[in-house]
């Protein structure tokens, strides 16, 4: 039997992290945008062992401060795209409020690290979520467009085409052909 699954939250990763750190007797506090603060210093000798135990789950400890900040921005963007309610303010002031830096500073660091602007990144993860929802085939295109806060189905389909170079119906056709093993 084949089934599709999607994973849209950090929860599984955090559960794994808690289990692994418990093995080393490390207690910590969890902050809501994807970082942990340990209650004691981690001995240098433990660090690489902890890294190793996390590696098989593709979890990495980020050392670089800029990279950290970029990861926190990404986590918030995922949270926005994958949650049902959209922030009431603009994306730029929402990020600035949550992270305590000016949007100009955040967008500069983000672009330097990822080679892509925050806006482009949001469009990319929105489009990815749309693709997953189309593959799951449980809700209509109109519902997907509403869920992802597009102003209209027309705007959604235009942005999909712009981002992928193919239309929504071409995407569906390709997915069906792939599913049927039609290579």
């Amino acid at each position, binding site marked *: 039997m084949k089934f599709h699954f999607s994973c849209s939250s950090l929860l599984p990763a955090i559960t794994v992290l808690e289990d692994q750190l418990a093995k080393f007797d490390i207690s910590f506090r969890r902050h809501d945008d994807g970082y942990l603060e340990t209650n004691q210093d981690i001995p240098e000798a433990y660090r690489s062992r902890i890294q190793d135990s996390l590696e098989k789950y*593709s979890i990495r400890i980020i050392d670089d401060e800029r990279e950290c900040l970029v990861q926190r921005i*990404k986590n918030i963007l995922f949270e926005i795209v994958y949650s049902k309610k959209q922030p009431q303010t603009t994306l730029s002031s929402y990020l600035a409020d949550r992270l305590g830096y000016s949007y100009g500073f955040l967008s500069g660091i983000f672009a*330097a*690290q*990822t*080679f*892509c602007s925050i806006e482009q*990144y949001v469009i*990319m*993860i929105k489009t*990815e979520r749309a*693709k*997953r929802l189309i*593959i799951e085939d449980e809700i209509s295109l109109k519902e997907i467009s509403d869920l992802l806060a597009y102003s209209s189905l027309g705007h959604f389909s235009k942005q999909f085409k712009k981002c*992928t*170079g*193919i239309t929504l119906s*071409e*995407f569906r*056709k*390709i997915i069906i*052909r*792939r599913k049927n093993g*039609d*290579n």
Partner: protein
Amino acid sequence: MATIKQGDTRNPGLKMSVFLADDDSDDRTIFSEAFEKIRDDLQTELLLFENGLELIAHMKSTTELPHIIFLDLNMPLKSGKECLRELRQDRRFDGVSIAIYSTSNAASDIEDTFSGGANVYIHKPDNFDQLKKALRQVLKLNWQFHMTGMNKETFFLNI
């Protein structure tokens, strides 16, 4: 097989590895020149193959897989479509993106190759600036997918 390395000190250790298989030597040269011009962005490494056989043989023997392979469609000995089929049958290469790089922009070629597991379809542009632009777009998007750990199965880009 030739190697081109590009330097960037911003993210040492993060290097994007790219393979190209194209039987036309002019096209290979143009591709690598365009590739060199986008050095200000990503740190990259390019390996060139003169045909599909060479590419497949290398893929089967190496442990250093590329992030993305550019495949010409019309090649003697082993066509781009045959390479695509062979690569996509091997689960080891699931994480490798495949870009079709072709003079054809027939709708059937585009749909067939996407259905066959290609991630990117580039209609060979007729001018150098367009090629640079397309290449930059492909490499950046592929990098985002890679760095975000997103599923390659739904990575599509048609330029």
